[in-house]
């Protein structure tokens, strides 16, 4: 089984990849996604394109969250004085 997969993964052209491989990866991705609407539809089947769509949305949301947090942190860092910053650094080491 693993030898078949390794053989197929070495042929890395777009059409040479086994569908099982792609299905496994999509499944892995699906388990990471926040399960917002999936509780109703526990039919046991997920469509690959839907998983990919939700993945793109989720990554965009995460990026936006990181950007917002960055802005907030930059404002906080402006108002923090150096003594407190050194204290926090020592806390985390």
């Amino acid at each position, binding site marked *: *089984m*693993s030898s078949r*997969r*390794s053989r197929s*993964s070495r042929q*890395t*052209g*777009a059409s040479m*990849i086994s569908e*099982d*491989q*792609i*299905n*496994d*990866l*999509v*499944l*892995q*991705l*699906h*388990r*990471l996604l926040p399960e917002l609407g999936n509780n109703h539809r526990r039919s*046991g*089947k*997920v469509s*690959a*394109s839907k*998983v*990919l*769509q939700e*993945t*793109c949305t*989720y*990554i*965009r949301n*995460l*990026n936006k969250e*990181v*950007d917002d*947090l*960055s*802005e*907030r*942190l*930059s*404002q*906080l*860092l*402006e108002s*923090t004085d*150096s*003594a*407190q*910053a*050194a*204290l*926090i*650094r020592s*806390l*985390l080491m």
Partner: protein
Amino acid sequence: MASPTYLNSTPTDLVRRKKRQSASSSAASSRRNNAASATAGDGDRWRSEKQQRNYSAKLIQALQQVRLSSSAAETPSPTAKKRGKAVREAADRALAVSARGRTLWSRAILANRIKLKFRKQKRPRPAAIPAVITTGSSSRRWKKQRVTVVKLNKKSIPTVNRKVRVLGRLVPGCKKESVPVILEEATDYIQALEMQVRAMKSLAELLSGSNSGSAPPPI
């Protein structure tokens, strides 16, 4: 550097709260780990408390440098957006370093930062293949969860390809990679981003709590 007197009573409180915070977050994440990601060995990499502490330390150092450089050499009034962007880039860099060079997206972030154009094409291939093999061997355990992907028929393959391309543009460094590479990188990237969000959120809480002068809010 004389520390203000009001800080004398709070350091131990902060330490206790930070330790409790990280302990509770690690307990919660380990519960989540046992429940949901029984097989994602790579997922534990981004969820361990050790990794979060490692990243938080790097983040602090990077942010210190941002603050120093911005106060020393910047224009008299750097816009909030520019400061925020500098923080984001520092955070991304710290995140990429924490990845220890095992993923494409982390190498792409670091390469973009240094502005050098050498792309390490040789290393990603052997790194990607063992990862794919491990997912293959653990698929037997996944079937127990009774979630299967609808079979890709001839009609859906171009749709899937198109969406994978879109995904590839979102993950740094994966614009021109093949489909399984993009999916693999996206999995790791999402987990890393989640950790980044957690770390930055708790750091912001810590900073905003200490800024107000009173003790940080109880968890």
